[in-house]
């Protein structure tokens, strides 16, 4: 992995401090999220992870990089989008760190800070998913897939045609999207929640140096 910029010990760039504030905000809401401080770098998470072979930064290194004050590298990595949330790491962590939930927090940080990986069109999937849910209250899988495939590239989507046809023959495609009855109430819940979820607006200010590096473990 590449470390973006060599900094003075304990001193963070403005961008990094902003990432950090957002990330800590997200970790703060996880029950037991503060245990991230207790990491002993044993590597059980990486060893348990079924997809660590495809990651550029291993789950153990994610926590190490967070401590070292380089969240930006994590957000730009493939790692957070490679996690399939199988919770193997979280179950086995001897320090009971909520590794999977922390990776969720990192995903949300990346979304809030608008750092999208080029290789993974996750934000496109997100768009189609949120639209689908907001419109019907339920997910209509064919619509989600069609919308997503058209966004990612029409040519690529032809590869899915045989599968789609086979699904249709076996009667496994639901063409009609069902809408929930109380869609108005549902949308109000979503709107209210999204307001509470808004990315935090903050002014550029030097970040508290004390919580970075070695001291963060105490």
């Amino acid at each position, binding site marked *: 992995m590449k470390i973006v910029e060599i900094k003075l010990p304990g001193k963070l760039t403005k961008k990094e401090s902003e990432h950090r504030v957002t990330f800590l905000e997200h970790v703060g809401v996880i029950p037991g999220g503060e245990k991230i401080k207790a990491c002993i770098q044993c590597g059980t998470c990486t060893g348990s992870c079924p997809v660590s072979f495809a990651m550029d930064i291993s789950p153990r290194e994610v926590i190490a990089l967070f401590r070292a004050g380089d969240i930006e590298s994590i957000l730009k990595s493939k790692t957070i*989008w490679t996690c399939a949330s199988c919770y193997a790491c979280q179950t086995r962590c001897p320090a009971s760190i909520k590794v999977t939930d922390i990776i*969720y927090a990192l995903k949300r940080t990346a979304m809030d800070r608008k750092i999208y990986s080029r290789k993974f069109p996750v934000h496109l999937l997100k768009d189609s998913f949120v639209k689908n849910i907001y419109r019907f209250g339920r997910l*209509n899988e064919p619509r989600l897939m069609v919308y997503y495939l058209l966004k990612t590239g029409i040519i690529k989507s032809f590869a899915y045609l045989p599968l789609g046809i086979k699904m249709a023959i076996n009667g496994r495609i639901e063409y009609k999207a*069902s809408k929930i009855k109380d869609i108005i109430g549902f949308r109000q819940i979503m709107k209210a929640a999204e307001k*509470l979820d808004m990315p935090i607006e903050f002014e550029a200010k030097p970040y508290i140096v004390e919580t970075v590096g070695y001291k963060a473990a105490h």
Partner: protein
Amino acid sequence: MKYTYYPGCSLHSAHRGYDDSCKAVFEKLDCELIELDDWNCCGATIYMSIKEITSLAIAARNLALAEKYKYDLIAPCSSCFTILSKTNRFLMQKSRLNDEVRLCLKEANLEYNLSVRVRHPLDVLVNDIGLETIKNKVKRPLRGLKIANYYGCQIVRPERGFDDRENPMTMDNLFEILGAENVYFPKKLQCCGGMLMTTYEEVAMELSKEILESAVENDAELIVTTCPLCQMNLEAYQNKINRVFKTNFKMPIYYFTQVVGVALGLEPKNLGIGKNFYQLQRLKEIEMMSKTEIIEIQ
């Protein structure tokens, strides 16, 4: 016994077979499933990675609706099961999250007082209805059908639920009672790739291939699963896996309720078995053989 039933989006589209077989099996065992009225999408794993409070709020809407029924809530889809129980857990532990979700629910005149228990049908079958009751109702013993029990990652993790988190045995015990033979299957908890099948296909195919390979190596005739997404990944992408890895898998992947249904003497038609891509050859055999046997017993 009565339960509230939360099918979830996938059981109402591509996975009707799971929905039908689940209902049929519970009916056969004299259990009433009352479908939750006006349920909405639980948000699945993906919403958690976009917005926290929104994802919890929409999941909590279902729990708030289910609270009025005063029964346990059954969620057959692993993803729905994890998300709903996770929401329950989060709301119980953190006061701030609870307050915010409460505010959101108020917008739709709903209230949730944390009293719903989220259950998986496997848990209910084995621990509530009981293996003895099921054993007494077996019409077609599975006659040593070699089954690989695939639990998938999310029904026993992350918190300890109804079974062990490293080596769950609930499904093995269930099928043993039904007369099947459980093969050695070390990949029973390995992730199939889940949603990565849409975003990072190479990795998901590798994982699914390992699961299929392990089942074939141990002479399993079919893989039985509890999760619609696993079923989809293992079955619908089998062709592509064969092409990419030059393998020759033809492994039938059934929902566990379908196989339980067959053993209880239900018609495969009513269990949605025809909708699966790969059919189990010995299924017909079991059906035919048992018909004569049933007559003999009577």
